[in-house]
Every structure is written in structure tokens, then in C-alpha cells.
């Protein structure tokens, strides 16, 4: 188990660094929010559900597990979330953030331990909130 985690950690870290390279950020904490978003995307892309779930907000984990009937780490990699290659914009207001990647829009909230993803796989809708594949209730 530990060996598997180490095997996954290397590409996740490398992908994260690559994704951060092209970030356009705004506001205090935007860099950290971008990093959390891209690390989450990289974890999902590498089927590392445990790492991805560690970056999800508690209400999002609850909703995912209730809706899927399985554990977060299993369900999150089965959602077919967009595979981001880099973050293009991060906007932070207070304790909330929105990170745009080349293939997705993610929403995050600031916790004691850092930024956590509240929603991912989000598509814009005119005059309405984003429609997200993964979101808390």
C-alpha cells in the first residue's frame, strides 16, 4: 500500500508542478488555491482517489458518498471529471476561490489546513449557478 502511494505520488507532484507553471493568479491565496485545484485534478487523472478525496471539502465528500453509495476514493475517480493540464486563472474572495483550468472550472474553500475543493467538473449556465459534476449539497 505504501509503495503504491509512493508510485502515485511522483507523477502527481510532477504534474502539479507542471500545471502550476502556466498559472495566472489574482488575490492573496490564489497561488495556493491553484495548487490545490491542480493537485486535485492530477490526483483524479492518476486514479489516486485517496489523494483527491483528501482535497475535497467535507460536505462535498458526504454528498458524493451518499449519491454514489460507495466510498469517496472509489467514487471520485469514476465521475469522469475533466482532465486539466494547467490552471489559467484563479480568483480569490475572502475564504472562497474559483480556479479555471484549460478544461474545467473548480470552486474551493479555505480551511484550517489549506484550500479544499467544493465543486469540480463545472459548466457555466446563463443567469444560473454552474452545473457541476461534483459538488456539495
Amino acid at each position: 500500500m505504501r509503495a503504491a502511494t509512493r508510485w502515485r505520488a511522483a507523477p502527481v507532484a510532477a504534474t502539479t508542478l507542471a500545471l502550476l507553471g502556466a498559472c495566472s493568479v489574482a488575490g492573496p491565496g490564489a497561488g495556493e488555491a491553484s495548487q490545490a485545484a491542480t493537485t486535485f485534478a492530477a490526483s483524479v487523472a492518476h486514479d489516486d482517489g485517496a489523494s483527491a478525496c483528501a482535497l475535497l471539502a467535507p460536505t462535498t465528500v458526504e454528498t458524493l458518498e451518499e449519491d454514489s453509495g460507495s466510498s469517496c476514493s472509489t467514487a471520485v475517480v469514476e465521475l469522469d471529471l475533466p482532465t486539466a493540464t494547467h490552471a489559467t486563472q484563479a480568483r480569490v474572495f475572502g475564504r472562497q476561490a474559483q480556479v479555471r483550468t484549460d478544461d474545467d472550472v473548480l470552486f474551493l474553500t479555505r480551511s484550517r489546513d489549506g484550500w479544499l475543493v467544493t465543486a469540480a467538473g463545472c459548466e457555466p449556465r446563463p443567469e444560473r449557478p454552474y452545473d457541476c459534476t461534483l459538488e456539495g449539497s
Partner: protein
Amino acid sequence: MSAARNALRGNGLTLFFAALFVVTLAGQALTGVALFNGEQRASGLAPVSLVSYVASSSFAVDVAENWQSEFLQFLLYIGATVWFVQHGSPESKKPGEEGRESDEQQKVGTYADESSPAWARRGGWRLSVYSHSLTLVMGAIFLASWFAQSVTGRTQLNEEHLRDLQDPVGYAEYLTLPDFWNRTLQNWQSEFLAVASMVVLSIYLRERGSPESKPVGAAHDATGVEG
């Protein structure tokens, strides 16, 4: 000891309201963080510390929107009482006295005496600036507070937008939105009502010993008479 007591007594009005300001601001911060953290917990989010809350846009916008309206209230009252009178009000000049008044009445230029402030004795731009220094400073604080309200209000609205999975709005757009104007106007209307009430009620009602009231036995139609 006596000098200190005299200093306290001589500045009692300022000290009384300064103390009330500090206590109520602290109360606003403590109740605000409790309210904010209740909403955080309800959303499954982590509570914040008092320091974090005081540095947040939520606290700042609540403070700024009240400050701007209070300073606007006094700014308009100072300016409006130059040109408008209210028959029977202790806060008003007598009818016929509207306007800037003469240099003699205002004790400026050649009519200034030794106790007059230095810029009141000097002519030119210094006298012009000093003649409006109260409204200039009150106006500057009003504009600064209103600007602070707009900046922090936008941040708070955008925080709500992001929590609700919506795009944030730009600053110029925020200035056209109901959120900005509702925060502004709900404070303005209450200030204007309070001023109008003070002007009218002080015609007929009294508070013995207060300079904001006419003497208890003064006639209702006595204007510009302070107790």
C-alpha cells in the same frame, strides 16, 4: 490629580462617546464572528478566529456602510443648515439669516481677534480652506468610508457568489448592482429620518440642560435658542 480630573471633565463628551465606540465595535466583532461561524458550521466549513473575522470583508463592509452614512448625515446637516432654516428649531438660524454671513459675523480677516485660529486671521486660500474645513474633513471621511464599503462589499458578494457556484463580478459592475445600493440606501434613509425628526421634535419637545434643546420654558416659535 486635580489637573487630570479637570482634563477628564473638560473632555468628558469626547471620552464618553469614544468609550462607547470602542465597546460597541468590540461587541459588533464578537457577535459578528459568532454569527459568521454559525453560518460556516451550517455549511460544513471550518470556523474562523476573531482576528481572521475582524480582517475579513464581512466585518469591514458592515463597519464601512454604517460609517459612511453617519458621516454623510453630519456632512449634510452642517451644509444644509447654512442655507435652510426651520422656524422654531434650536438647531437652525433665524429666518432671514440664511447664507454664509458677513466677515464681521464670522470673525474673519480684519474682524478676527487674537483668540481666532491662525488661518482665520490670514486671508487668501488659507481662509477659504479653513472656512470649509469641517465639511472638507467630514466629506473626505464619508467618501473614504463609502469607497471602503464598495471594495469590501464587492468582496463579500463575490465570496457568496463563489460559495453558490457563480462567477464573481467586477468592481465597475458591482457599483451598478442592488447589493451596493441597497446597503447604501438602507443606511441613508434611517439617517435622514433621524435628522428630520430631531429638527421637528426639538421645536416642541425639551431636554432640560441639553444644548441640543431649547430651554424648557422657551416658546415653540423661538428659533436658534439653545438651552
